[in-house]
């Protein structure tokens, strides 16, 4: 993400952003980017408005244009009431929204967001999603990284799954689910101790992927209810069962595995 933001030299391969070479034209490219870094870089000692003023000045905007855009942007991220408050006491969600507002001060063509909702509560996440969606509708290109598959599903037209710095899959969320998973997933729980034995029997019932985790059995299926009926017919009675739609998370775990990557 830092390479895309032109603040880090490309390590390998070719990179062209807005038709320019990020090494040679870094500053000219950055002039047309907005960046929302993973860690906020707001100046906590300044007010909300001053943070936007400082940032606008970096892009050479004059005071009246900055003031005009500040009003619009604070309204857009719902921070108008806090305009003259210091940044420090703001909540995590407010700081994130302010960072987004700040990144838009130069009216960027591309907005780069690095895990924009990590650490936010559900309400705050939904506000951020809503604002990002509106930006997308206005024609701003969003490039975002996320570990939240629901976030990717909500916001992305085109999704790239990365594992150990390699692209392992690419497509729309819907395409990826169709390609790498089944339409539904059946989740079963058995009494402690019975799980392994049940799993051995169930494997024979399904031609699709099956997975045994510490606390449950995952069965990928075109029709979850139909498979559940077959499990019961085979004389197995789970203590809990749950049929759900396949999600991007299933795709992600299938592609990158369950082992922790730090």
């Amino acid at each position, binding site marked *: 993400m*830092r390479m895309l*933001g032109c*603040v*880090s*030299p490309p390590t390998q391969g070719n990179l062209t952003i*807005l*038709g*320019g070479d990020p090494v040679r*034209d*870094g*500053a*000219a*490219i*950055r*002039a*047309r*980017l907005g*960046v929302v*870094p993973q*860690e*906020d*870089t*707001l*100046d*906590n*000692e*300044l007010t909300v408005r*001053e943070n936007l*003023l*400082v*940032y606008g*000045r*970096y*892009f*050479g905007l004059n005071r009246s244009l900055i003031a005009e855009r500040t009003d619009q942007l604070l309204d857009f991220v719902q921070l108008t009431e806090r305009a003259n408050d210091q940044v420090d006491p703001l909540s995590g969600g407010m700081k994130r929204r302010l960072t987004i507002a700040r990144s838009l001060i*130069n009216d960027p063509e591309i907005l780069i967001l690095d895990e924009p909702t990590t650490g936010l509560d559900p309400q705050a996440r939904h506000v951020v999603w809503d604002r990002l969606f509106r930006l997308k509708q206005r024609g701003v290109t969003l490039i975002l990284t996320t570990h939240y598959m629901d976030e990717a599903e909500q916001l992305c037209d085109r999704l790239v799954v990365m594992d150990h710095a390699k692209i392992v899959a690419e497509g729309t969320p819907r395409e990826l689910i169709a390609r790498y998973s089944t339409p539904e997933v059946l989740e079963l729980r058995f009494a402690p101790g019975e799980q392994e034995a049940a799993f051995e029997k169930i494997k024979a019932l399904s031609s699709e992927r099956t997975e045994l985790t510490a606390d449950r059995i995952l069965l990928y299926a075109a029709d979850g209810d139909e498979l559940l009926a077959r499990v019961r017919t085979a004389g197995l009675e789970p203590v809990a069962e749950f049929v759900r739609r396949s999600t991007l998370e299933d795709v992600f775990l299938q592609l990158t595995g369950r082992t922790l990557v730090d």
Partner: protein
Amino acid sequence: MTSALAPLGRLPGKWDLSVRAFRCWLVAYRRTWRSSIWSSVFGPLFYLGAMGYGLGSLVDKHGTATLGGVPYVVFVAPAVLAVQSMNTAMTNAAFPVFGAMHWNKIYLAARATMLSPADIFRGHLLFIAMRIALNCAFFVAIMAAFGLIRSALAVALLPAAVLLGVAFAAPVAAWSVTLANINPMNYLFRFGSVPLMLFSGTFFPIGSLPGWLRPVAYATPLWHGVALCRALSLGTADPGSAALHVGYLVAMTGIGLWWGSRTYYRRLYV
């Protein structure tokens, strides 16, 4: 990718970009200048009172021939000015630079914009130079008001003091930006500015130091600043030594600028 992409815009000049970075610091300074006045203006005045007038009354009783025949307070005032400039430079180039990397992240925010690491460095240096100039201007005015200036050459006192400060600020900032924690800064002050302040011909002439130590004192940047300020204030400046002092400080500034543009680049473009 068939839609026409607008060509990348031309960048403004380096000076313009550095001024943009400088103005960012002004926004923050607008809130803190009142509290900063106490430490930066009254501190040196206390020095002048205690050393110049207090200690000076004892010194003057024993004759001031080694001081050039002027009262001690007249001898020491330009040196206090030089020390003030150095201290303003070092404190402003140490903690705020570190803070801009680690605490308020001013540098990290700025690098995502069209500023380059060198613009960020020069912009901050401009702000530090402004702080130095304000503090020194106030002190020069006090010197004039108390009749401690003996020569018309003193019109060059303020630029000389600012040059001295910038000569310190540039390399200190260049170094501070590289630090991962603030502990080494204590060494800078303990083994850097404090001995410099005491032994650079500030409170007594270098001739009073032991012979083997004198060459060391003559080599220090603060001595060049003190000697320059004193010569301008007392009117004893001769073109040759003045040029040497100025040359030394300009060279130190140049090295600091070069070094800083490298260290800032390495820290902000990784």
